[in-house]
């Protein structure tokens, strides 16, 4: 396992570290800039005060007096999507690359089984993802303490915790995708497509709701728009389909969905593992 982790770190250290650092730097610079903006141009925050319709769409609880909190809300709208995509893509592509570039024989020469390669890659990606979640949380914890936003500490804690759990589910999807794409060159596009589709499906209700709000603001009566609001309400059920959506603040995830997610993840892992080992034999070490 150490050998595979060493090789994976040696090959991807720049990429993994860059993503980690960029995340930390982004939150840090956002905090500094918003702090300066609050001091120098206090009216800036109120200028950006979005109407309720947009606030709902962008998942705001309420408009905060601190610009950083508002920026944080704007960020987390897309942040889990990007990080989970990088996690899925990195994991899936590293598995596919072993097949594509036929580097498995060298691992076999060293007595390393496919199973070990898989577990090592999974462990490395999990540790990296955990580091991102933890560092981001700790950083935001400090910032919210400095801003005296105690409610935000809980919200951000829940957000990063749930993001980590969503990431675990997405890893099982990535593994399945990788196992199915072993003969293809890359599976990053497939990962992106899967994430985008479920993200857009889950957000469909909010687009329709936003459209209805805009029409209402332009002078249409509620009666005329009732069917649109009704449709939006019905489509809100689709939120449950998106693992990215699960980690958003205010999103309730019923226990039945959690159980379903665990079962689906298990099925994907077992299916992926069988496909991954389809044409291979375990070395008859006797």
């Amino acid at each position: 396992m150490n050998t595979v982790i060493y090789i994976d770190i040696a090959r991807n250290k720049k990429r993994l570290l860059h993503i980690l650092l960029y995340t930390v730097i982004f939150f840090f610079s956002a905090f500094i800039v918003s702090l300066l903006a609050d001091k120098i141009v206090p009216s800036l925050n109120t200028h950006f005060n979005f109407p309720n319709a947009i606030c709902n769409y962008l998942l705001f609880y309420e408009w905060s007096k601190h610009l950083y909190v508002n920026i944080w809300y704007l960020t987390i709208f897309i942040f889990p999507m990007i990080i989970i995509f990088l996690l899925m893509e990195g994991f899936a592509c590293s598995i596919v690359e072993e097949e594509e570039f036929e580097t498995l024989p060298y691992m076999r020469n060293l007595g390393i089984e496919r199973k070990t390669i898989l577990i090592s890659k999974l462990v490395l990606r999990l540790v990296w993802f955990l580091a991102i979640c933890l560092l981001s949380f700790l950083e935001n914890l400090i910032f919210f303490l400095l801003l005296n936003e105690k409610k935000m500490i809980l919200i951000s804690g829940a957000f990063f915790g749930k993001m980590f759990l969503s990431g675990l589910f997405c890893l099982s999807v990535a593994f399945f995708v990788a196992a199915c794409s072993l003969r293809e060159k890359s599976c990053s596009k497939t990962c992106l497509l899967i994430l985008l589709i479920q993200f857009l499906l889950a957000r469909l209700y909010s687009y329709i709701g936003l459209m209805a709000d805009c029409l209402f603001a332009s002078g249409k009566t509620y009666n005329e728009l009732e069917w649109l609001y009704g449709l939006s309400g019905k489509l809100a059920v689709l939120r449950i389909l998106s693992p990215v959506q699960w980690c958003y603040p205010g999103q309730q995830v019923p226990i039945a969905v959690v159980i379903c997610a665990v079962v689906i993840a298990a099925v994907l892992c077992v299916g992926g593992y069988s496909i991954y080992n389809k044409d291979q034999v375990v070395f008859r070490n006797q």
Partner: protein
Amino acid sequence: MQWELMEVTNLVTICSLRNVAVKNSNGILGKRINMEIHNGDIIGLISENAAADRIMQAICGFYKPRAGRIWYSHSLRHGKGKPSKIQYVPDDIICYRDLTVEEFLVAASITAGEAAAKEQTRLCSQFGINIKKKLLEISYEQNRLVAYILAMSLQPDILLINRPTSLLSNNAFLMVCKELVELHNKGTAIIMAESSFENLKFPCGNYHFIASDEIRSYTRKSLPKPGKVVSLVGGTIHPEDMERCRILYGSRRLTKFVCHEQDRNNLIVMIYRTGCRDFSVENLTMKEEIYQDYSRWIG
């Protein structure tokens, strides 16, 4: 060049293939393949299709044969997390992106231990490999040599080499051969796969020629010497041509001649080809010789 290969006296079977069948996406490559591998064997597997590659992959466990069994001796058992006793050198380069030679070998020595690391350092300096460079920045030849270094440093019981000369210059292959001889003298069985006999530049003890439905085995001594083919003017053969040919080649007993018509005068065999202005003498390849394939001249 003469190799000082030690004669292995007490042969022990360490691996045997029984009625193995291999295939790829194009269909069956070889079936009913029986083969024994002893310690200290040097075996050449020759197949025009990818049967030899597949057999190697089956022996080292990457590929499950479509039929038959492969038996391994207990001596090939390796501890968990220890390097395999069966080492495989693929015919291609090592494609680890963003990995230096040093990092690759360090990763290997995590599993293989200090002794292997020392051997790797020795071989790297002997082969003149810059270990600070990335695997995909060194030449193809050096990249392939790194694969050889990895396999040879782990002191395997069976060393499987797919297309030994691929990507290597003559000098580089000579360096590899010296190390292979040393390995063989320590009792390692070396198996080499090639697409043609002519490319197999290392003297093997046994040769297995694999076709789709048969495997023909020869020892070094029983290997037939390649013959020559005489092609003559088409239509009726002129007696003078025949005589010239006989004097030039037949009487000198350079080699045997092959043909589809039985002997005339002293020429054992002749193949006629229409359209030639004069006769010509061409070498048969080993495959053509073994499978009596004269399709280049007939039809």
